């Protein structure tokens, strides 16, 4: 019986594992291999350069800048979408008029691809015709107007805002589902004990939302490490690398400069960072599992 079950398990696992091996494991291993070479992605003649690419990483200002920008992105990803998402979820969870309509409205950006969102925000930020500058001019705040995406001081934040705009909807949905799973009796019990809204929010609701919070933050970190498409569409990492993220830099090195070897080294570093994050994530999840026991 057990033997038969094992056989079926092997049969069912074979195809997904084969696909996973071909499309994930093998490219991953080849990335590791190429990171020790000076391959340009095209010429069949290339040589083994040992740890040269990794040594270059440690002194490359472009890489350090990309690390800095990715960290800013990650911090914003953890704070902004979860903060606003929680706030909106708490408001819309009450039985107020039009709650379902607003839920759909806030969720809508998630249905758009990041390429579309990038294009929409390029228009919002347009220096002459953009909604943002036109609004500022209308409010007699024209001293605040800027060429948002071409000013190195604002480009990164301008892209992050566009990205967060989409992510808020995702955080909201996860928090909403988390909120419905909180037993109403616990909140009522807190009220009977004399807790006001803020006290029950801080002492009951937020602690019980921690599984949802872990998911929201995990997704935020994953998505910030992946941040490529919206950057590619809006600024391509510019101006002057001011909005370069690790993923964008990896692409530029590999497919703009044709330094596939160096680009692979950057991707390996990105992989290691993801691995560290994943280790923390698994630990957190294990600690939270008791909530569902």
């Amino acid at each position, binding site marked *: 019986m057990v033997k038969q079950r094992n056989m079926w398990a092997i049969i069912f696992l074979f195809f997904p594992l084969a696909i996973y091996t071909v499309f994930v494991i093998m490219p991953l291993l080849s*990335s590791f291999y190429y990171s020790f070479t000076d391959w340009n992605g095209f010429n069949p003649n290339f040589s083994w350069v040992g740890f040269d690419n990794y040594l270059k990483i440690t002194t490359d200002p472009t890489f350090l800048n990309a690390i800095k920008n990715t960290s800013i992105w990650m911090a914003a990803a953890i704070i902004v979408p979860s903060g606003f998402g929680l706030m909106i979820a708490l408001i819309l969870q009450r039985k107020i008029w039009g709650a379902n309509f607003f839920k759909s409205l806030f969720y809508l950006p998630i249905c758009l691809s990041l390429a579309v969102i990038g294009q929409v925000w390029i228009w919002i930020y347009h220096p002459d015709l953009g909604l943002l500058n036109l609004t500022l001019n209308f409010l007699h705040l024209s001293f605040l107007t800027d060429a948002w*995406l071409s000013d190195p001081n604002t480009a990164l934040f301008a892209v992050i805002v566009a990205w967060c705009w989409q992510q808020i909807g995702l955080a909201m949905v996860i928090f909403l589902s988390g909120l419905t799973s909180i037993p109403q009796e616990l909140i009522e019990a807190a009220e009977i004990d004399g807790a006001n809204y803020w006290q029950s929010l801080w002492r009951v609701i937020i602690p019980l939302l921690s599984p949802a919070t872990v998911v929201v933050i995990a997704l935020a970190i994953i998505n910030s490490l992946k941040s490529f498409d919206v950057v590619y569409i809006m600024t391509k990492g510019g101006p002057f690398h001011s909005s370069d993220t690790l993923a964008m830099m990896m692409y530029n090195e*590999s497919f703009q400069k044709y330094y596939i070897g160096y680009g692979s080294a950057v991707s390996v570093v990105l992989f290691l960072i993801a691995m560290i994050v994943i280790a923390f994530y698994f630990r957190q999840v294990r600690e939270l599992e008791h909530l569902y026991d």
Partner: protein
Amino acid sequence: MKKLVWQLLTLTIALAFVLSACGPAATPEAPAAPAATAAPAQPTAVPPTAAPTAVPATAAPTAVPQTTVNITHYFSDSLGKKWISQLTDGFGAANPQFKVADNTTGHEDFKTQILVMLAGNNPPDIFSYWAGARTQFVVDANRLMPLDDWWTANKMDDVIPASLKPLATYNGKIYAVPMNAHIVGFFYNPKAMAKAGITTMPTTWTDFLAMCDKLKAAGIAPFALGSKNQWPAQYWFDYLVSRTAGPDYRTQLMLGKAAYTDPQVGKALETWKMLIDKGYFYKNANAYDWTDAADQVAKGDAAMTLMGTWITGYWDGKGLKAGTDYEFMPFPSIDPAIPMVVHGSIDAWTIPADTHNKDGALALLAWFLKPESQAVWAKGQGALAANKNTDPSIYNPVMKEAADYLAKTNFLSGYDLSTTPPMAVGGLNMFALMMNDPSKYQDYMKQTEDVAKQVFKK
């Protein structure tokens, strides 16, 4: 049950983590390189009657076995595709032994796709490519077929202008056959000029600067530039270097044999800084695309833009008329002792070393270079024909001026087609920096030389 769902969710997110880390570098099919090279030419409208290659469909049946010629190119916009198919249809009808299979992809996708096809030993029989450093890159990997015999047999020296031959030649052999040229110069709005009281266009640098002052006094920005995607700014560097330090120095710089910290580069950047400091450029160049700059000139907010002949296609598409709404002027001489060159880009055809249908590819190449085909193509694309025997009546007055200028001037490719891709990334960054804050130009020179040292292993 909830626990199971929880564990599944955990696992899915963990998987997403792993996938997020093994992205682009592991998959060569990732999104294509951004537009660092010549802009897509917007073809001008051409009456459908201009079809000298059309051959009656009732060609006599033949017993010759038919072979397929696979062609890949980046003329992927609807009109580009239309004129290519008109040429290939004509070829197929006249040569029933060959059947042309067209595998067009998007202009940007092409850049990655063709390299993947060549590296994967799955090449087309003939493909379009940008003459210059990009072709050199493919030649250096031994992926292209030398075309010297074909060139001689077809007397190409009588067809292709001598000034374009260097763009066909790599490592001493012919590898790329030019299909058309685009040249870069000032495209201006004659009405804006007239408004500022300018009736004759300057040919000397002093007169040129005086003209800029006049325009500025009339409230018109002399230059529009849309350097959001960096490459449009490169032509300022190209011309300022070749007009002050000479074309030979400029070639040395492109090959890594001169340094970006040289006084010659310093002088070019100083001149550029002077033009920016005087307020000659329309504000926020880095916020706009080249088409925005074209619009600023068309509206008369700016007087001119330094751009390639493909801008005529863009303007014609907007209903502007050559000669009355826009005009062409070459970049003026700065130092009369220095020979003039014209910068631009060449679209060429190349044949892979391991083509499956050499005869078909060579026959199609000869067909593309016929004066009749060239006339259809150049007129349709808003480009300058590579065949010097093409009927000049196909050009509008502005393109005619551009063609005449090219005929008497030596040609050098634009920056990002003249130097290696990693160097071009560094240089283009410097040009955008210049438009952002020219005061630090000496720092930019040092930074760019650092890139050059790495790229050229100096």
